[in-house]
């Protein structure tokens, strides 16, 4: 039976320290009734997936503004698949050009959210994904 609680990991991989968006999204998800595990900065794909396994997370959200999104998302997806979390949602946000968003979708990453996105649309997206992917 699917847990009524949606559990979300939020993390910033690599060297980018701009965490305003990640923190604001974390607060919004909590306000919307989800459980957030906020890992913070300087995470590695390994540390993120390890936490996802430990927490049995439904969703992993990456925040990347430094331009290193393709390599980070690719690596996290690979590790999630290997750890048996291939059916979970990998999403995120930051500064990710449209053409790269398409590449990410090709890798099996979900929708990603850029500058100016409304908080509610992020909440709705995760809730919508969760209800159609009940475990």
């Amino acid at each position: 039976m699917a847990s009524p609680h949606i559990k979300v990991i939020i993390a910033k991989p690599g060297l980018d320290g701009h965490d305003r968006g990640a923190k604001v999204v974390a607060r919004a998800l909590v306000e919307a009734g989800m459980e957030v595990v906020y890992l913070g900065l300087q995470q590695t794909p390994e540390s993120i997936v390890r936490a996802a396994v430990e927490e049995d997370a439904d969703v992993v959200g990456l925040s990347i503004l430094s331009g290193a999104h393709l390599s980070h998302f690719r690596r996290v997806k690979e590790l999630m698949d290997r750890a048996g979390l291939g059916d979970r949602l990998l999403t995120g946000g930051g500064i990710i050009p449209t053409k790269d968003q398409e590449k990410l979708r090709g890798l099996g990453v979900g929708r990603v959210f850029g500058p100016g996105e409304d908080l509610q649309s992020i909440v709705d997206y995760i809730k919508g994904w969760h209800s159609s992917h009940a475990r």
Partner: protein
Amino acid sequence: MNKAAKKRWEEQYRKSELRDAEFSSISGRELQPLYTPDDVPGFDVEARLGYPGEYPFTRGVHPSMYRGKLWTMRQFSGMGTAEQTNARYQFLLARGQTGLSVAFDNPTLYGLDSDHPLAVGEVGRTGVAVDTMADMERLFRDLPLEKISTSMTINAPAAWIFTMFLANAEKRSIPLAALRGTLQNDILKEYIAQKEWIFPPEPHLRLITDLMAFCADHVPQWNTISISGYHIREAGSTAAQELAFTLADGFCYVEHALRAGMDIDDFAPRLSFFFNSHLDFFEEIAKLRAARRIWARRLKERYKAKNPRSWLCRFHVQTAGCSLTAQQPEINVVRTALEALAGVLGGCQSLHTNSLDEALALPSEKAVEIALRTQQIIAYESGVAQVIDPLGGSYYIEKLTNDLEQEAEQYFQRVDELGGVVMAIEQGFFQREITRAAYQYQLALSRKKKILVGVNEFVNAGEAIEIPVLEIDESVEQDQTRSLDKIKKRRDNLAVQSRLAALQQAASGSDNLIPHLLEASRVHASVGEISDTLVKVFGEYRERPFY
């Protein structure tokens, strides 16, 4: 004051139909429809306002302000390799910029070399890559460092980036005493907002006071620190929080230097500040004026500085990066212009104007040229630089300045109650205040209580981003790692080892570390090698993530 006339207007106002909008500042401050002498009762013009260049400096830090010298037009820049960045500096100087400002890439900002595993995918993307003094040589080739001031936005490894800069100046036979510029070097706001640290607070603070002492003797024209609010504001704080947290950090640095045995007048004249200039026009101007008055009073009355230059809150301003939109990016030019105007009316000493494409990428040549021309139009066409503190005496501005000052004082008290800035950081006080303000603003945007043109109102549905965006090529990383490798092979590695050992030894004691860092820099020790050496003594910092 004619009370009957005021009552008449109040009556009329109450009867008026108002727009469906919130009449508050971007920080959430309730605003009155009108400000009158009643809002500044008993305003002591001599004590509260004074004159420019005189205590409490509300009207400006210099007697002649922009009539004597315009603010420095200093565009923060850096991209890819040192050569690419040097070319951008030449471009900007040729177009009338009057000061240099260096943006470094993420690995450099964290004290890592370009070939570090964490640097993969990051080299040259957010600024220029610097690994050794050789990169300083390339970066500043053909640039007149003895004639123009240079600002470097670097914090965690600031001390050794600075000594690499000095080593290059020595090599070019430029006397250190002739060098003018600023090092950001403000670690406290890193823990609070920008998040670029290496060690825990105490060792970083020691490096900062070491640098202050070294510069007082050897590089007297250098601003040793740029105590910053910009990043705190970018992280989502209100104007009052930006003001209060920045000055609180400043007081903490002063107290640290005093505890280290320095004389206040030996280092205070070379402390400088860096504020944001955000969208809410009048609030920003008032914030900057309040900063000057608060700092002057504290330095004079609490810390007993005798030299009037110790009382000065001199600052650089950057227009708010977080106010720029990826949607309809051309209109960012207007946002930047208004923000720049506020910075000038607030009396800044130095100004950076953002480029229209900066929500998307590092600025293109065309975009940064427009940003620079924005400053030139303000300086030479708008007329605002002809008169000092032109908004001084406005009931609104003086009331707002008073209010911001009061709000800052309340925050200082709370920080004191928590045991000072470092304790407050460990308890997540600043971080939580900032995130709360950021979240409130985001909710206000969601609910259209605050408008962002092109984003939640006046949206062009289905717009495609068409402006040319600067791309950093992947070859930058290969080039940089190859040069670093060559340098490591060609340098005197025995000398490097022995100087790093001496540095490590000194770090375990209480010697001033700057001369040791300079020695290591001269023989081409790398940024990462120096960081690693110091980590052995100081350890690494791991933050508790608050949100």
